[in-house]
């Protein structure tokens, strides 16, 4: 009985420690894990993306026959790339998070990401869609703009047009 109680206390202590290290105030990004195209585990709150103006777009990777009909997620990737190329020199980080269909291998995801172009934007994968769900993303594409304090300052559901992205980013970076 004492052993069981000791175990329970240990579990509670670990849980408390974990929750203490992962406080996520409302409106801020959480610590959900992504995978980059090399399969490495990444977090939105890691230094590469946190603490700077970050445009992150959640896009669905789905298996419609390529090219036969419009795909707003593919379109969003094109627009994010355009924005990235215009604002990278001002300090903007751009990230496309692909949410895949069940059963898609990491290799297949890597191929899709590479086809979308990684020369300007970073591309990561949210294998189970958990990070997307933690941000209440239930429509794709959904795009978030985070300020240097990791707060979500703008949100677009549906295809985010480049003029709105540029306007909001310009405000955050204090550039015209």
């Amino acid at each position, binding site marked *: 009985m004492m052993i069981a109680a000791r175990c329970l206390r240990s579990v509670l202590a670990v849980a408390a420690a974990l929750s203490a290290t992962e406080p996520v105030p409302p409106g801020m990004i959480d610590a959900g894990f992504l995978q980059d195209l090399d399969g490495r585990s990444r977090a939105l709150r890691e230094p590469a993306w946190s603490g700077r103006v970050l445009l992150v777009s959640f896009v*669905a990777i*789905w298996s*419609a026959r*390529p*090219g*036969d009909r*419009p*795909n*707003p*997620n*593919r*379109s969003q*990737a*094109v*627009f994010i*790339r*355009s924005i990235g*190329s*215009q604002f990278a020199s001002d300090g903007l980080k751009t990230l496309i998070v692909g*949410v895949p*269909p*069940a059963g898609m291998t990491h*290799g297949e995801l*890597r*191929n899709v990401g*590479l*086809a*979308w*172009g990684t020369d300007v934007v970073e591309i990561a994968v949210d294998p189970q*869609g958990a990070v997307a*769900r933690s941000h209440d993303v*239930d*429509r*794709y594409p959904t795009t978030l703009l985070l300020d240097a304090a990791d707060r979500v300052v*703008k*949100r*677009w*559901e*549906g*295809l*985010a*047009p*480049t*003029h*709105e992205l*540029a*306007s*909001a980013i*310009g*405000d955050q970076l204090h*550039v*015209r």
Partner: protein
Amino acid sequence: MRKGPIGSLVVVVALALASPLAAATHYVDCANGDDAAAGVHPDRAWASLDRLNAIALEPGDTILLRRGTRCRGSLRPSGSGVEGAPITLDAYGIGVPPVIDAADAPAAIELFNQQYWHLRNVETVGGNPYGIHVSGNLPGVLRHFRIVDVIVHGVRGTVTNKESGLIVVSPGAAATTFEDVIIDGALAYDSTQWAGILVGGDDFGGTPTSPRSRNVTVRNSTVHDVHGDGIVLYQVNQGVIETSVVHDTGLNPSPAVGTPNGIWTWMCGDCVVQFNEGYRTGSPGVDGGVFDIDYGCSNNVVQYNYAHDADAYCVAVFGAYWTTTDSVIRYNVCANNARDASKAWQGDIYVLTWAGGALDGLEIYNNTIVWSPAVEAYAVNLKGARLTGSGPRRFLNNLIFSDVPQLIDASSAAGMQIDHNLYWHAGTAAPLWRLDAVESTLTDWRFGGHDANGRYADPRLADPRREHSAGPTPAFAPSAGSPAIDAGAELGAMGAHDFAGREIPHGRAHDVGALEWRARSTPGNSGWFRKSPRHLRQQR
């Protein structure tokens, strides 16, 4: 009636006899392959494009190039697919797309008098004067091409004509046309030849009655750093250019070949240009604009586009030699264009005819123009247009916010209905309207028959120059109390939504400009493509 075993066997045998030969898959590994191998398995892949070029491909065949490898030379495969069984070029393995390095060969990938082809997941570098070239010279129609998720760059040579560039689908003889062409997800950049993406339907000498290609779509593509045009449809019916981006076009140092634009249609029937972005488009001479309905076009629409920071205009409509009919320019946002002082005179909206050409049917409505040219010039230039015929002639519901006094020149736009526009000059000089080659005041302008319902007032845009925007309203949209709200005319068949994809009209009437005012407009839903794909809905 139920079939017995013999009946089923007959069906199976009949199907087998009716089926074409089994489709083959050919593997090429330019790093570790062997041309003496069978080429039918990744472990027995061929080593060169020459080996592929030597075989006759059959309908349904697939060519797979190994990812992460570089193949030198050109892919000039033989054979055509058929309906339902195209021939496919794709990649296998994991990693970066395979590269075809053409060096100075005429093209990295060339299809000639072939049809039913899919090209996917390849990168090409080099070629002179083409990167990917699809062509033919036999009378008739070449059908069904898909060029998807390709990267094409590094095309070299001195440009000598407009039928050259990174991705060129264009016939070598006037009697050849294309049908059912989709280019989706192409990244095309770095070319000293002319076009980024060109799909043509004639051998560059056509008339409005010449054969045209049909059902052509370019979408989700990016073109930059090219010496000529960005994306062009020439001699096409039912063409679409959408959700694409062009920038840094028109880099050719000489105008000898022509004067380019970003995205445009030429001799195009029933063509739509929409949801695109263009910036830093240039030209060694005139033009250098972002969008253009050019001569010989009929029933073209340019809508929901964003043109900014271009050397020259936002949108042009041209008529030459023949009559350009039924052009519609609507719900576009034009911002900070005319960066090149030598091109500012063209304006942001530029309408021109020459060489006996005319315009029959021209509707320009609900565009937002933020005009801050490098030198003083009129934001809207309608003075050089010959209007003819019975088609509608309207310049309505447009919002012009200008840093210079010159707002609109309609000197020769006889019969044009110009009304319900909202003008504002954000400066101290008196604003100018130009009518019959005389600069005038708003009173004179109205006396001349224009803008009885138009206004000169601060439109109270949320952020016309991306400055001072602390609120939630997107740039270029009217804020509460704007005189643009509910001030537009109802034209009928104006489309279902505004530039941002939100339903129109909102309120008592249409607003002036490309963006309809909302009390709560963002953070928001663009209204474009809201539904999640099925597999993601099912996860929840």
